[in-house]
């Protein structure tokens, strides 16, 4: 496995004699962070190199070492395949001395890493993956799920739209586990808030042509067409909806998993009016703006996505826990320490990590601006509502996580 390694605090080990006693508790005499995500494909803009940069920034802001032990960041591409991902993880843990894996978009890969990490008793900090199973039935004492999950997205977008009058829904659902989960969670929120689900149509994954499904959605006369899909499927359905005059005909689209980089790719002309939920936006407040500015300087002007922000915050909190604990060998103990300490970072503010590994913070409901409203590059969102931390995520009892009992 060829991974590129960035040595951030090289050769500091021997120079710092006074720190040596503590060093003994860090496996291999250092802390190695492995960023595992999509470097080349569908989710490369959402996670990719930006997540590596975010992790490096977290390490630099922390001072480059914990109790004298140097911190290294390494990364690899999982190509969105669970088998590739779990192979990398195994090799990282077994032979390359990696202590923690972060990011991991694509739910299927994240679930695989979740298992490998549990087996090897290391630490897994999820930012890129969406599935709420990571803190539900498949929850693990070695895993923290930071940025968002399907339940939070469905809850945010679903309830807000119903409350503003979008009370009849038709779903365009990608026909696989993730799409079904998204549809199920959103439909539950819609009915709970007094809305009605008129129907749903399942389309194959990576489907190029949505015309037929859009026509069925149009025929349903539902006010809202919920897009329970992701990536290229979402982008294609939004584009083709414009072609078939769906939005012009009075129906609205609700993207259930849309990131700022997708909006960037679609352009405001096509994406305007779309309602979506995120846990981070670069233009939220002074500290997010300051950090995003630093980030953009290293990324050719691209602002961070919520996933990349989540990587920064999660790594920062992990390093704080290591600093308090003085050891990184026992993954469970590290995660326990992370749960015991309240979180505080410039991007997500103050928060906590729940027993099931769920990080709690507010979620935000945004509407994509019209082209005329946008004042500059990446000025895409209007804040519509803030969902407080205690309402934003699935209640502990409903997740069926064995750790919560």
């Amino acid at each position: 496995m060829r991974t590129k390694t960035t040595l951030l605090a090289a050769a500091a080990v021997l120079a710092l004699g006074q720190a040596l006693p503590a060093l003994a508790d860090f496996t291999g005499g250092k802390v190695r962070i492995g960023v595992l995500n999509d470097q080349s494909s569908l989710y490369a803009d959402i996670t990719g190199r930006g997540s590596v940069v975010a992790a490096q920034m977290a390490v630099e802001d922390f001072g480059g070492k914990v109790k004298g032990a140097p911190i290294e960041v390494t990364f690899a591409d999982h190509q969105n395949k669970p088998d590739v991902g779990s192979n990398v993880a195994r090799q990282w843990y077994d032979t390359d001395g990696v202590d923690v894996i972060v990011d991991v978009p694509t739910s299927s890969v994240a679930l695989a890493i979740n298992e490998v990490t549990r087996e090897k008793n290391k630490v897994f900090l999820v930012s890129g993956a969406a599935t709420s199973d990571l803190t539900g039935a498949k929850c693990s004492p070695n895993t923290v799920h930071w940025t968002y999950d399907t339940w939070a997205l469905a809850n945010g977008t679903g309830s807000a739209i119903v409350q503003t009058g979008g009370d009849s829904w038709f779903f365009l659902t990608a026909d696989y586990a993730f799409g079904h989960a998204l549809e199920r969670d959103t439909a539950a929120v819609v009915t709970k808030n007094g809305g009605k689900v008129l129907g749903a149509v399942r389309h194959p994954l990576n489907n190029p042509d949505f015309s037929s499904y859009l026509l069925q959605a149009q025929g349903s006369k539902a006010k809202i067409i919920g897009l329970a899909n992701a990536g290229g499927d979402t982008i294609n359905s939004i584009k083709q909806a414009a072609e078939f005059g769906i939005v012009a005909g009075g129906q609205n689209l609700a993207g259930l998993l849309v990131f700022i980089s997708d909006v960037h790719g679609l352009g405001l002309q096509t994406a305007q009016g779309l309602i979506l939920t995120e846990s981070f936006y670069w233009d939220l407040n002074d500290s997010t703006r300051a950090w995003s500015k630093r980030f953009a300087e290293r990324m050719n002007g691209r602002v961070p996505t919520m996933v990349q922000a989540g990587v920064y915050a999660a790594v920062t909190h992990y390093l704080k826990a290591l600093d308090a604990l003085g050891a990184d060998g026992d993954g469970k103990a590290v995660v326990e320490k992370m749960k015991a300490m309240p979180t505080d970072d410039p991007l997500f503010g103050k928060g906590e990590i729940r027993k099931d590994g769920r990080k709690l913070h507010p979620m935000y409901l945004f509407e994509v601006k019209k082209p005329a409203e946008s004042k500059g590059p990446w000025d895409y969102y209007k804040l519509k509502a803030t969902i407080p931390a205690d309402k934003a995520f699935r209640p502990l009892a409903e997740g069926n996580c064995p750790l919560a009992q």
Partner: protein
Amino acid sequence: MAVRSEPAAIRAATGTGNGLRHHQLGMALLAAALVFAPLVLYPVFLMKVLCFALFACAFNLLVGYVGLLSFGHAAFFGTAAYAAGHAAKVWGLPPELAVLFATACSAVLGLAFGWLAIRRQGIYFAMITLALAQMLYFFYLQAPFTGGEDGIQAIPRGRLFGLIDLANDLVMYWVVLAVFFAGFLLIYRTIHSPFGQVLKAIRENEPRAVSLGYDTDRYKLVAFTLSAALSGLAGGTKAIVFRLASLTDVHWTMSGEVVLMALVGGLGTVFGPIVGAAVVVSLQNYLAGLGHWVTIVQGLIFVACVLAFRRGIVGELARLVGKPL
């Protein structure tokens, strides 16, 4: 329409019933190398090579000895992976029964696909197997028991015969090695049996085999089913080793990869697919950091092999030493 790769003179020498002395020597060397390999190499990597080597050998049985190029062998590999995963995880079967069940599933599937596909020959055969495998891919993508995109994860390795804990990678390695050799020897015996002779006769000249009174369709179907079953053995074992069965295992790229392994090693050679699997798997491992450059390199190897290197590594070696390998 058969893939011919061995020079006629060498082929004539394969005629003897029980294989050849240098084959036995080759096997002894292979066994010795594999026994000591985990001292130097990462056992998980070696197990991957062994699983794919068995898969490639099973595939080679069909293309190299019957002349049928299947472009849908991922269907059998992947089906077995799902079957083994489901049996071990949901039904709680011990690993040996899970893998057996998986092999049986692939055999049944092979019987069905083979029954359809042997109605056409050559290029059509390749296209039909590819299309059938793609159909199965879409089915698995939607079927609830496969977990769709997520695949079946955290498959327990369990205890072999209820006694030996397979959680340790080295212990697992010995089991995989045994499975590999069992499959490999079965294929070897098949090729060198009277049944294998008829298969080769079909490859060389099917009308002639028919005129000699052989029901060639039945021979082809049996060979296809056997190849599917052994691909299943490889797939089922892989699922237990990596504790994962996913869509990658049934995707058409997997079918392409096994073709590449057999081609690189040498179609219709005994040891070729093993060498080919080792080359392709190493390539994937060492180039993984380059992401999709892996596919470009694989494509280039395909082109190079077809244009200039049709005998493959072992085929060329065999030509050098003047003996079939």
